[in-house]
């Protein structure tokens, strides 16, 4: 046979919303913005919207559809993200899925003692260090809110710890414009200058409005700073069902969509083309404990719907997965992480955060990150689909086989086994006796050992000297200003 066109492999995807459902949510969102209106606490943000055609009525800013549609049209459908060495490692664009941890947990599970305790700046660095080594983790977030630095300097220290701990792109948070400016100075020193940072951004800022419909001064100010400087930014609202959003997911999606589009509009009014990552957090407010549930099925359901909306707008999309409500790394945590990460892949959510959270985002766990890394690897294999080709159909091997005799020692097995099957690294498939002999270790125990091994062995390239000098300057300035105010 002459060489024929290969049969294309189907890589499975899911759609949560029909075209009609997407249009209905879109229209509801536009009605919310023009009919109900938002509350804008930032003066510059208010002026930008009003100058562009919004109006004030009954204490609200009401935003017409054309303002929103213009913003969607001017935004970029993709955000190429680089690591801090200048390599393109995370192009946020259609069809691609990238995973990373979440930010700012007050507590962590100490990887040496197993105790739940307050997080420190060193924890943030160590978790970034762990993430730097995990092959399935594409970006880092601060993962801890350091308790051992002055409260107003939390975010600054988190940023410094992250970039020291990992070369991977990061998603960072900040307190206010002062934080944004200091972090920007440090980032420019890392990249080699303002132009270099704009051309090869290795950081993406995460700010958020307060659902429902409240745009607080600082968060808008941070958003506008990103637009001014060309820093990629995401501004996901949290219309958690029954809390920040209506109890019904459709209402939460309509509200969250409206809120996210205002964030988009603000950035595009400052600078058309500002790289903006669309999205929202659609957790459920648990009706018994009143926690925001990170393991709830509403979240992956909402994330899938949100990804459909993003495709409708041709925008890159933010998502959440790999997080648990469980207080320990156990079966519940595994279920919550696996379901959400599978969903993230199936929906092709571009940037998926909160991997490694336990206790509904209050505590970070290195073991959970290591477990999630294995789950992502396994789900990625499933997403590969089933290759149908002459080499995989194995006609000759089937013809050769002795009925009942098996294929284990067939040349086709020996030549293809390495790629044809997935092989676990952390998941255990030992025979019982051997598992007993090796210490009867469960998944969490093995993950703990792996995390400690990585921390002991993995090397991360240090920051450029110029960047460490700027960090020292910034920290000195903070100290001096703290002394002046006391």
């Amino acid at each position, binding site marked *: 046979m002459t060489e024929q066109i290969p049969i294309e492999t189907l890589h499975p995807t899911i759609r949560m919303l029909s075209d009609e459902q997407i249009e209905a949510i879109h229209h509801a969102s536009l009605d919310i913005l023009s009919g109900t209106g938002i509350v804008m606490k930032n003066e510059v943000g208010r002026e930008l919207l009003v100058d562009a055609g919004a109006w004030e009525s009954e204490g609200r800013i009401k935003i017409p559809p054309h303002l929103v549609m213009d913003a969607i049209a001017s935004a970029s459908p993709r955000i190429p993200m680089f690591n801090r060495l200048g390599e393109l490692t995370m192009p946020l664009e259609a069809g691609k899925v990238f995973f990373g941890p979440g930010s700012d947990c007050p507590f962590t599970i100490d990887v040496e003692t197993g105790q739940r305790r307050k997080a420190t700046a060193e924890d943030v660095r160590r978790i970034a260090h762990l993430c730097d080594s995990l092959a399935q983790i594409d970006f880092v977030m601060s993962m801890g809110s350091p308790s051992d630095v002055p409260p107003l300097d939390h975010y600054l220290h988190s940023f410094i710890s992250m970039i020291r701990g990992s070369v991977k792109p990061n998603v960072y948070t900040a307190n206010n414009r002062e934080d944004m400016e200091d972090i920007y100075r440090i980032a420019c020193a890392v990249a080699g200058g303002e132009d270099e940072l704009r051309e090869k951004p290795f950081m993406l800022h995460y700010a958020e409005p307060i659902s429902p419909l409240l745009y607080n001064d600082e968060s808008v100010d941070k958003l506008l700073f990103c637009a001014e400087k060309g820093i990629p930014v995401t501004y996901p609202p949290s219309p958690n069902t029954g809390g920040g959003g209506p109890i019904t997911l459709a209402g939460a999606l309509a509200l969250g969509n409206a809120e996210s589009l205002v964030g988009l509009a603000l950035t595009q009014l400052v600078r058309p083309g500002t790289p903006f990552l669309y999205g929202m957090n659609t957790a459920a407010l648990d009706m018994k404990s009143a926690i925001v549930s990170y393991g709830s099925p509403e979240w992956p359901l909402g994330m899938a719907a949100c990804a459909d909306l993003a495709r409708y707008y041709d925008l890159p999309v933010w998502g959440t997965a790999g997080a648990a409500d469980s207080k320990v790394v156990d079966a519940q945590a595994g279920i919550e992480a696996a379901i959400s990460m599978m969903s993230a892949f199936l929906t092709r959510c571009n940037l998926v955060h909160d991997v490694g959270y336990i206790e509904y985002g209050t505590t970070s766990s290195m073991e959970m990150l290591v477990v999630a890394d294995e789950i992502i690897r396994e789900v990625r294999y499933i997403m590969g689909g089933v290759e149908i080709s002459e080499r995989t159909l194995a006609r000759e091997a089937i013809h050769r086989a*002795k009925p*009942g*005799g098996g294929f*284990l*020692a067939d040349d086709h097995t*020996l030549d293809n*086994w*390495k790629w044809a099957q997935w092989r676990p690294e952390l998941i255990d498939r030992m*025979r*019982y006796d051997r598992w007993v002999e090796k210490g009867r270790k469960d998944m969490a125990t093995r993950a703990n050992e792996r995390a400690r091994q990585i921390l002991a062995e993995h090397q991360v390239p240090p920051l450029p000297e110029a960047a460490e000098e700027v960090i020292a300057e910034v920290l000195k300035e903070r100290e001096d200003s703290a002394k002046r105010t006391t």
Partner: protein
Amino acid sequence: MVIGLPSDHLRKGRTMDTKAHVLEQIASNLYKGEDDVVATLVHQALDQGMAPAKILNGGLIAGMDEVGKDFKAGDLFVPEVLIAARAMHAGMDILRPLLAEGEVPSAGKYLIGTVQGDLHDIGKNLVKMMLEGAGFETIDLGTDVKPDAFVAAVREHQPQLIGMSALLTTTMTGMKATIEGLEEAGLRDTVKIMVGGAPLTAAFAEQIGADAYAPDAATAVDVARNLMGV
């Protein structure tokens, strides 16, 4: 088969300094499953005037021993063992016609089969291949082997060891019937009997009067060696 840099290097013969060296190269290439390289090296060793039995023991079997050790330690996958076994065969095919009668060393003669009523072949075949890799001479009776057939084969081949396999709880009883058959024929004391298979336990093996139980193919080799007293 992928031929990497080290083997290309070997093919040019640059590292063939000493006789000991060529045996080490055979063993290490066998470990890596480089069947073509193993064949080339076996020819080179013969050209240097080395005795076939020495090449077999010091090269092929030494290499296969390392494979067995690392498989048992959990460092190798089953196909890696089988690829190494394929390389061993490549070497053996050259040596076999040159080895004098009685020069082929055997770790023991091993009769193997899946018991009556059970058609499962794959696990039994894996055990057989592991045993062959360790130098055992195997006689494979196949699947659905009736007690009488085991007895007749013992009489004919006079093995030191018998291995019985079963995948089903319903066919496990065939093992006991076979042992009883050997007792009736007065042959029980001439052989050591091993049993294995997914539903089996060491306790079951003891209960039916077998000499040993092996939970997996790698362990089966060790158990067989122990029963042979080596």
